[in-house]
């Protein structure tokens, strides 16, 4: 089995609430390896490029929002002035760009077997109110999409975690240069995987 890489970003709400250490520990104690780490302000351009600037992505995000609204019997038109999924996706992206610039963020590259699945499991549902206890989002937040939309802001869900194996590879290479990534052996590794 090959090792995978995942990108994890602790977003401004996690940073400003003093949760950086606690969140990093969650990944360390499972045995994931931090192969890159930096804490810095990110530029608008970088955030724009981090999220795909494609109709497919806008549509996906917009449709997810519309589905959530429909479930709750709410009118998306009232918040977004449109019920076009792509337009809604664009608005959500604008919110995200602003969100990422509220404070510096902690960017981490993680590596392990099944890294993506493990990171997603530990992170929990991207909508904090739906995330299980024991997950990072479930334990440290209870934000909901309705509330976020009502307040014209992005969902504050503490962390970003890569979605798929391909995304993990792509995002790690997007945020880190080769000489910012390191290979080393964790002290516990030989007891876990021998």
């Amino acid at each position: 089995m090959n090792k995978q890489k995942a990108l994890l970003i602790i977003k401004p709400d996690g940073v400003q609430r003093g949760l950086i250490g606690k969140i990093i520990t969650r990944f360390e104690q499972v045995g994931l390896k931090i192969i890159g780490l930096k804490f810095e302000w990110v530029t608008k351009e970088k955030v724009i490029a981090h999220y795909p600037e494609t109709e497919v992505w806008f549509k996906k995000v917009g449709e997810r929002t519309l589905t959530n609204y429909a479930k709750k019997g709410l009118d998306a038109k009232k918040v977004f002035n449109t019920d076009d999924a792509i337009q809604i996706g664009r608005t959500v992206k604008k919110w995200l760009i602003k969100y990422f610039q509220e404070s510096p963020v902690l960017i981490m590259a993680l590596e392990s077997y099944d890294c993506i699945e493990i990171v997603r499991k530990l992170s929990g549902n991207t909508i904090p109110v739906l995330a299980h206890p024991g997950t990072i989002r479930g334990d440290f937040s209870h934000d909901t999409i309705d509330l976020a939309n009502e307040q014209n802001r992005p969902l504050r869900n503490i962390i970003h975690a890569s979605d798929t194996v391909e995304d993990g590879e792509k995002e790690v290479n997007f945020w880190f240069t080769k000489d910012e990534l390191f290979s080393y052996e964790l002290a516990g590794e030989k007891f876990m995987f021998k």
Partner: protein
Amino acid sequence: MIEQTLIIIKPDAVKRGLIGKIIETFENVGLKLMAAKMLRPDKKVIKNHYPGTSGWIKEMGKKTLSSFKQSGVDIKEKMGTDDPVKLGQFVYDRLIKYWQEGPIIVMTWEGPDAVQIARKLRGHTIPLLAQTRTLHSSYSFDSSTLSSSLDRVVKTFIHASGSVEEAEREIEYWFPKTEFKKYEREVDSLYLK
């Protein structure tokens, strides 16, 4: 009043998965992380982190002499010399070797009395002598006797600047010409306003 201090998590702490716990310790008191990066500096970069002057080297040699004296180990037998300059240089070389065991994490933290607070939380340089509940005492049993018997330096897995002046120099060294833009943390409105 508001100071900045430089904290470094050294290779053994990184390998043991203590990054989160160490960051949490500084975060919990309310200090604010201003910058951080993982890196694997080469020998020269590590060497220049320290003042490296002949006076400094001699001082380090003297410290080694006194810690040997305290533990009752014959320094001449163990190190082949009791000349503080030679001892200092010897320790300096071994120190650099220790730093090169793996990647490290360099950080700038900010807050009222940040330098003193960070030193207090870290504890005495030699873990065995550190006060209970400090980071050095909580996560290590290392001592001068143990380290010298294994031909290495004491693994002081956290570096924290010793004074405001030292912090200034070290921050400029590791984060040259960096502008640390302000941001607000949850404790700020309670204690800093």
